[in-house]
């Protein structure tokens, strides 16, 4: 313990040195900008600025990139809440209740809770990272394809809890999303599926164009032509902060989101995206008034936002503790380290203590910086809503196009966004939810791949899912959840029959 504190002291000495502090600040600002832009998420942001970091020393470079990552997660919630446009894939769930809160005049409260929740989650998860990195990382490495498949299946089952409207419709939408995820090169055999000659579809339809199209573009398609401008109550200054009741309601969701997000984040792979979906589903399930979700429930903002911030720190656990590239973003960070001659591996913490502890300390600092940056910005951002809608929506369109284009430099993505926007418009007219499509799209490639990899590993035996303890546990939990969700419906049916039997008994 003493050693940890001593190391932390070294770390803070590094992190608070003016140079490093400057880069942390710059990273956070850039990250926020990048996050606010629809579509361009942390990965795109880090990738774009990776070359700029080559000229810096190792610690500053890593701190800069991590700051961008963090800032993007904070910034992503801003457009989600204010305009129902996801800043990145992980902010999709925040769009739902966050925007409803904006329409009720509670935009400031939503933004503030998102910022504070992100801060708490970020800080707590950094502490966990610091204290638990090596043992957690070893545990995380034991997640192979069967465990991964079980986890994703669990995530999909959570879907049943996510939806407000008809479960059948949500399941249909999720299946649609899963099918959309089938487009692209089949990684197990090399076949190009459903790509119809467009090379750009080789990697499938990106999550970003679909999310921005289904949520952001469809939103302006629906509202631009309304005879009366959208009903957005302009909040007064006093109403910018959450009420005491709202704070109380957010407490537990923030806590649960933090833990959930961190645990999901440490698992290698891109699982951390689903942390916000899972958190939303959990909050909805545990709430005493689930019907409030989808109408502006603050728990629907607090939980997902905390979850996706702590998943961020979680994603660094395998990278820092073992040098394992546990996802695309840690892979870029590892590359950044390698360019500076630092080879990340299990010995990183021992051999490069200033890097590791400086990194940890700068994450604390980064979180504080972002909180200080974002809270006053709430007031500024809310003023964006005062712009008359006929002038606002062309700007939104431009930013959507810019954001989606910037991710890959591809107009095909913009085309996908357009198609998805039109689809989202029609879907919402027909009263379908669009969030399950995004979830399905994210999960499909990963689920199919881990499913077929598992069968490959076991040479075709399905027993592999049952023989491995972690996978088995998750499948059992999933099954239990499924039964629990079906149970009320089942009970009602039995009850009805009983009552019928009783009635006919009485008639005799």
């Amino acid at each position, binding site marked *: 313990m003493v050693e940890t504190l001593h190391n932390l002291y070294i770390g803070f000495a590094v992190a608070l040195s003016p140079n490093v502090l400057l880069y942390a600040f710059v990273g956070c600002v850039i990250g926020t900008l990048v996050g606010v832009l629809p579509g361009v998420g942390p990965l795109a942001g880090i990738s774009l600025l990776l070359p700029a970091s080559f000229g810096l020393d190792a610690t500053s470079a890593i701190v800069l990139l991590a700051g961008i990552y963090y800032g993007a997660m904070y910034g992503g919630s801003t457009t989600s809440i204010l305009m129902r446009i996801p800043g990145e894939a992980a902010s999709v769930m925040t769009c739902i209740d966050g925007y409803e809160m904006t329409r009720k005049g509670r935009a400031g409260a939503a933004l503030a809770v998102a910022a504070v929740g992100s801060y708490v989650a970020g800080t707590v998860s950094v502490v966990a990272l610091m204290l638990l990195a090596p043992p957690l990382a070893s545990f995380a490495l034991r997640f192979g394809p069967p465990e991964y498949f079980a986890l994703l299946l669990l995530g999909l089952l959570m879907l049943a809890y996510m939806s407000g409207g008809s479960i059948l419709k949500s399941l249909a939408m999720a299946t649609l999303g899963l099918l959309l995820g089938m487009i692209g090169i*089949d990684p197990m055999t090399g076949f190009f599926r459903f790509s119809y000659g467009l090379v750009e579809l080789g990697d499938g339809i990106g999550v970003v164009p679909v999310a921005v199209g289904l949520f952001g573009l469809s939103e302006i*398609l629906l509202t631009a*032509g309304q005879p009366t401008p959208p009903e957005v109550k302009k909040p007064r200054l006093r109403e910018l902060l959450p009420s005491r009741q709202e704070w109380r309601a957010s407490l537990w969701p923030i806590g649960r989101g933090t833990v959930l997000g961190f645990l999901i984040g440490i698992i290698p792979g891109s699982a951390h995206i689903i942390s916000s979906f899972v958190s939303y589903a959990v909050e909805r399930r545990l709430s005493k008034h689930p019907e409030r979700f989808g109408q502006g429930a603050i728990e629907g903002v607090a939980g997902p936002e905390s979850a996706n911030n702590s998943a961020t720190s979680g994603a660094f656990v395998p990278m820092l503790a073992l040098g394992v590239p546990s996802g695309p973003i840690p892979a870029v960070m590892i590359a950044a380290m390698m360019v500076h001659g630092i080879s990340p591996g299990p010995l990183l913490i021992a051999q490069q203590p200033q890097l590791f502890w400086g990194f940890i300390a700068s994450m604390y600092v980064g979180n504080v910086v972002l909180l200080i940056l974002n809270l006053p910005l709430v007031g500024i951002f809310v003023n964006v809503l005062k712009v008359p809608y006929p002038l606002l929506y*062309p700007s939104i*369109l431009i930013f959507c196009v810019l954001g989606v*284009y*910037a991710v890959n430099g591809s107009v095909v993505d913009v085309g996908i966004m357009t198609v998805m926007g039109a689809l989202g418009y029609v879907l919402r007219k*027909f009263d379908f939810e669009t969030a399950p499509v995004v979830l399905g799209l994210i999960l499909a490639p990963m689920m199919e791949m881990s499913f077929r990899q598992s069968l490959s590993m076991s040479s075709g035996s399905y027993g592999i899912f049952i023989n491995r303890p972690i996978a088995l546990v998750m499948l059992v939990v999933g099954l239990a959840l499924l039964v629990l969700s079906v149970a009320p419906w089942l009970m009602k049916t039995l009850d009805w029959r009983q009552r019928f039997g009783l009635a006919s008994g009485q008639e005799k």
Partner: protein
Amino acid sequence: MTTDRLSGAVLVVFALLVIFESRHYPLGTFRLPGPAFVPILLASLLLIFGMLLVFTSGDAPRISSIRWTEWHHAAAILAASVFAVFATERLGYRLTVLLIVGFLIKVVERRGWMQTLGLAFGLAFGSFYLFYTLLRVPLPEGPFGF
């Protein structure tokens, strides 16, 4: 004809299309699934969901009750977006944005020239400066040097 019946029917047709298109790829077996395995599985699920939707949607609203009043604007926005797809790399980012914003604000929204040009130039050059110059995001330049 209710909304649910129509959407259910569309889903059924789509699912059948997917199954039909998957015939190009090998199916494989349960032990070693091929590229067509999971798509056909999912499409079958969608088929079931679609049919359930068609047959159990007793209390859905009728199609005629859906209001499409805003479709003119929606069409304009979609047209602008399609234009962006084809024009961004040929005409350059800033020119495309200028045209799109100009079109939407002047022609569709019928605002004055001051607002139109102000917002158009502001957005086009402002966003370009922010993202290309400051953040080094590659944005295409057009044939006129801008």
